[in-house]
């Protein structure tokens, strides 16, 4: 079957099977920032924005995305670059595998919650696991990024 989606502002038509998950479809079409981790909604590295809301693409059937807008980190390059500067400043990443999903989640957080508290930041990102850093540096980096964006 064919689905029609808007990816990072561009209209696309993807050939899929009804049982395909969006993670596999996006990677098949070279959106390689969308990473595979646990493949069962637990780690968050496959997160993309569906109509502006973060969702785990490993558990979203591609067919369900038909007619919707998708944003991956390739669609928010300036914000991702700024965030990565803050991450670098705080020593907030090592392997970088979770960074693309972290960036789209922070983008969604910024749009959804005005002036988020520490707890709101933690709660929003609880689904994004990082096995390198221990989160403190990331938390500081996200806070300073959000401050800069005001």
């Amino acid at each position, binding site marked *: 079957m064919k689905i029609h989606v808007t990816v990072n502002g561009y209209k696309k038509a993807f050939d899929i099977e*009804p*049982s395909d998950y969006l993670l596999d479809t996006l990677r098949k079409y070279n959106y390689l920032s969308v990473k595979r981790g646990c493949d*069962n*909604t637990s780690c968050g590295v496959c*997160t993309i924005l569906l109509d502006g809301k973060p*969702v785990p693409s490993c558990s979203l059937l591609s*067919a*369900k995305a038909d007619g919707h807008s998708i944003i991956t980190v390739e669609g928010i390059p300036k914000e991702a670059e700024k965030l990565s500067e803050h991450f670098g400043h705080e020593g907030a990443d090592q392997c970088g595998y979770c960074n693309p999903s972290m960036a789209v989640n922070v983008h969604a957080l910024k749009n959804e919650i005005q002036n988020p508290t520490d707890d709101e930041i933690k709660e929003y990102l609880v*689904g994004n696991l990082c096995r390198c850093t221990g989160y403190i540096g990331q938390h500081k980096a996200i806070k300073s990024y959000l401050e800069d964006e005001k």
Partner: protein
Amino acid sequence: MTLEVNNYVKVKSLQEAYELLLADDSNQIIGGGAWLKMATKPVNTLIDLELLKLDDIVVKQNIITIGANVTLRDLEKNKDIKEQFSGILYEAVHQVMGVGVRNLATIGGSIMGKFSFSDILTPLLTMDVSLEFYKQGIISLQDFLATKKPPKDILLHIILKQEKGNGFFKKVRKTALDFAVVNICVVHKDSGFEIVIGARPGIAVKASKAMTFLNRQSNFSEQVIQSAVALVQEEISFSKNLRASKEYREQLVAVYVARGIKEVTQS
């Protein structure tokens, strides 16, 4: 495990959805699809109700009507849901996985799945909740959960009566993103007590004997509370799975039911 699906249809009407649902025993309606990976049986056609606009929460004359396609995230953000019984439904929803999963999972899917690990059914069972189906009409949540096989019907709305009272919800889990080892809900409202235990690991059930006992009491001393706890343990069955032993669940429930009764009677 690979999901087997032959067709995927976003239906344009309820009748189309209903006819498709009846056309093949393996056809099924998809909610958010967040737990679909746990499905073990092949599906011929997945029926998506997205275009039918069942995604509103409407409050009118003390009744909250929730569309079956409302996501857990939208439910969690609703102020009326936050106010019901000290926010127990909000607390339960808020603790389901991360924001991403809650943006996918729907209230309809959470109910129709009758998931034994459900954190949602536990607080819902303490409330006056009815389900509106396309053909069957309105039935109570409790009656629905008592049926062994889900009806071949389409859940349209969850109808929740706004009530005043104090609530307590506790989900015991090992990590922030894990399913519950057990979950406990205690409510004290005008019509009396409600105690529901879920993730036993069986589906959520009411502790009716303890509820009846507490409704006959005028004071809630430690002795009364411990008698209620004993009735919960006598009535509700627990078992073991990968997350916990039967005995550990029994101990947890004893502690948190007592804590819950104290909290709802003292606040």
